[in-house]
């Protein structure tokens, strides 16, 4: 059954084709904020920020993944995500992500002059994205 709201979604990483199929909606986080993409979106290229990726394949079926970095190219009837780092929930090491989160939070809380705030913040975002994805 071909859903007329569906568009082609392709997620590729340097090592493999991570996902290829049809979706009716993709939600992801860009450097400008979270966006949801439906079919017939205007052509758009965004840079990705660490966050949760949600692929709505049908009204009931939703897949999630932790999308850490890369960029996305949105065309009217297709979306291509060039991801450098992306993981399915079952590939995530929750314990490690949790540790990374604690580490990053501590570094942010200390606010010593030596800490690289931006880096710590990014690390926090990454770990939170992984934990969220793993919980789903």
């Amino acid at each position, binding site marked *: 059954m071909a859903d007329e709201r569906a568009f082609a979604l392709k997620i*590729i*990483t*340097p*090592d*493999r*084709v991570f996902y290829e199929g049809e979706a009716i909606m993709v939600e992801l986080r*860009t*450097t*400008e904020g979270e966006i949801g993409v439906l079919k017939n979106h*205007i*052509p*758009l*290229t*965004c*840079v990705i920020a660490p966050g949760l990726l949600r692929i709505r394949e049908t009204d009931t079926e939703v897949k999630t993944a932790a999308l850490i*970095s*890369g*960029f996305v*190219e949105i*065309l009217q009837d297709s979306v*291509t995500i*060039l991801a*450098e780092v992306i993981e399915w929930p079952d590939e995530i090491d929750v314990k490690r992500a949790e540790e990374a989160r604690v580490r990053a939070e501590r570094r942010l809380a200390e606010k010593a002059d030596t800490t690289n705030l931006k880096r710590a913040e990014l690390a926090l975002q990454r770990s939170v994205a992984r934990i969220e994805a793993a919980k789903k």
Partner: protein
Amino acid sequence: MASMRDIKRRKVSIQSTQQITKAMKLVSTVKLQRAKTRAERSKAYFHCMYDTIQNIIARTGHVDHPYLVKGDSDRKAVIVITSNRGLAGGYNSNIVKLVAGSDLTNDVVDIYAVGKKGRDLLKRRGYNIKADRSEVINEPLFKDAMDITDEVLASYMQKEVGEVWLAYTGFKNTVSHIPTLIKLLPVDGKLPGDDDTEGLSAEEAGEEKPAGDSDKKEVMSLMNYEPEESEALELIIPKYVSSIVYGAFIEAVASENGARMQAMDSATSNAEDMIGALELQYNRARQGHITQELTEIIGGAEALSS
């Protein structure tokens, strides 16, 4: 004429060498297959990356972004990808010759070495080895490419170096590997992929361009960027550079194994030839020996009977 025993000893020693070269050939054949599959799998990514970058650059025109303008420094960084192990024919020395033969002279160049062989050879030629990441080439990961890129970009942004080059062996097919030297930064209007010398991107571009080129361009010209082009450029170019570096890693690994396979193949067949020649010599010596013995016996018998 060498004695029978000497010839035999020589033959046995060549035979055992041949066994080694044969085994090495088999191993590199398997590794080559794996590297090839890997290169195939990553092609889609690089192709997309290449298109996007080209499009952004075409649209932004001449922006005064540091990534697009040559730095003030005369120094140049060169990432040199070679192998950690030898016995791969001219694989390593070709790359070194390429670097040394270009106008990247040893007084203005900082080498980021990936691969022990290239590192040692360049060091001997008086190049300054700034960083050594030889362990990477055994099993290159995208993370490694990102790390090296970060390091090089940082020194580029701090104006320590004015240009960044990459030397690696492009993998065209199993028997032809092309030592390639490309400029990574500053990115000029003409991307490295435009060159015929650049393996991966050029090849694919050639394959897929004719079909959807005009369509793609039209769609691309409507493309919006978020953040806007120049900012997107800032974020995407490091990704672009690391993807080229990663692509180069993968191609270099494939080429290394291809080169080793060829070298070992010819070594094996040379051994075969030598064994053939020795076999002949041995048989001749054996026959000579028998004839001599016969003559001696007959001579002895005649001396007795007369």
